[in-house]
């Protein structure tokens, strides 16, 4: 039955070559933790992607209740934590996941750095990886404000003030981020839009490039 369904689709769309490209390749022995225990360092990239996936999922569920305006934001987060079924777990996953993404991504980067895997011909993949790092830091910075509690408000006030000290364009960066002089209603909607529309779009494109490149180039050989 499953085979018949697959055949029916394959006759029309010819998906087998695509499938082969994505999944049907050999993984070399030196990155296989089942083969050598110390190869677990090669799992960091996959685990980063796993946590990014849980961030996307938990974020989508949070968006079902979260309201991005200064009157309701705090209350909606409180409601998620106190009333919604498993809401505290979903919020906890999104909160702690943010730190976990940074940790795993940093470890992945150190692994790539110390094994010299960024060297020719993989320079572009390193550059895309660093860009992903910056985008993820952007997620952290914009997500921090959304609960609209004291911690969020004051950290963002200081953060945007720091941005405004950049010579020449500083005050324009501040206006772009804050939407005025002080952190307020516009800032919240802006950070929300950046957090759930702009950055995810950038992240998905960069991740796609990252993965396409590793399929094209393969994993760097053993040291």
């Amino acid at each position, binding site marked *: 039955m499953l085979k018949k369904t*697959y055949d029916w689709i394959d006759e029309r769309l010819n998906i087998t070559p695509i499938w082969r490209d994505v999944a049907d390749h050999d993984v070399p022995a030196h990155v296989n933790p089942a083969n050598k225990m110390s190869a677990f360092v090669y799992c960091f990239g996959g685990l980063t992607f796993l946590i990014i996936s849980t961030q996307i999922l938990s974020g989508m569920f949070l968006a079902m209740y979260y309201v991005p305006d200064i009157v309701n934001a705090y209350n909606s987060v409180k409601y998620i934590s106190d009333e919604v079924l498993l809401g505290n777990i979903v919020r906890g996953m999104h909160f*702690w996941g943010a730190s976990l993404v940074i940790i795993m991504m940093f470890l992945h980067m150190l692994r790539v750095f110390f094994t010299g895997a*960024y060297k020719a011909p993989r320079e572009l993949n390193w550059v895309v990886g660093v860009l992903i790092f910056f985008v993820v830091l952007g997620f*952290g910075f914009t997500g921090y404000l959304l609960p609209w509690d004291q911690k969020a408000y004051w950290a963002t006030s200081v*953060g945007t003030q720091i941005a405004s000290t950049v010579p020449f364009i500083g005050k324009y960066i501040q206006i772009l981020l804050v939407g005025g002089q002080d952190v*307020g209603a516009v800032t919240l909607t802006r950070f929300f839009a950046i957090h759930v529309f702009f950055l995810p779009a950038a992240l998905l494109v960069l991740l796609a490039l990252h993965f396409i490149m590793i399929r094209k180039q393969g994993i760097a050989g053993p040291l």
Partner: protein
Amino acid sequence: MASEYGKERIPGTPRHRIDKETRHGTEPFFPNFLLKEWIVGSVFLVAFILWVIFNPTELTERANPADTSFIPVPDWYFLFLYQLLKYFPGEYVTIGTLVIPGLASLALLLVPWLDRRKTRHPFKRPIATGAMMLALVVMSWLTYEAHMQHEAALGKLPKQDSLPTIKDTAIIDPKDEGAQIFMNTCAACHGQDLKGKVGPQLLGIGNKYDKEKLLETIQKGFPPNMPSSGGLQDPKQVEKVAEWLAKQKQK
């Protein structure tokens, strides 16, 4: 090999194409390797969920732009940048905000072009390895410093709950001259009901301190939030407030 590929339409595990003797440890990505990665991922996820369950996420008070006594601190992964700024005050601030982080980011982006030799083993390229180790040490140290300085700053804040809970909330002698002065100035931070707002609770302060001690404390203040003498100009007024506060012996 290619002809064998054509025979299986659904990519499963073409085990027959692996020569176990010559390619020891090599595995097809799907499904063999992916299943093993999923085992690692599952263990990781279970640990993550357990951590989330036992470490509930906190929500502080609702954002209050009027309350400037809150000591802001960024998330832990921005602490090293935050700490860096503290070493470049005033007109040098752009060194901390732009120059150093900009150069570091650029160096990170350009790593493949800064280190172009073919050799890959970390011990065979001491400059690259050393530079990254140095960066790690500096970042850890900056993060640690920022954390310790934040803890110290928190420790200096007046303790909000240094007094035991007071049951009797009636204010003693509200007609007193000191009370009038207090309500006009100090109450902005300590509350009309003495229960504390920005500043700590003062209800029952008389149980703990006598007039002399209170006078001394008010005169000193708690910089930066409470100015010395609480901002009062006239020492006689300060004395009256201290006298009145010493009477606050609630149970």
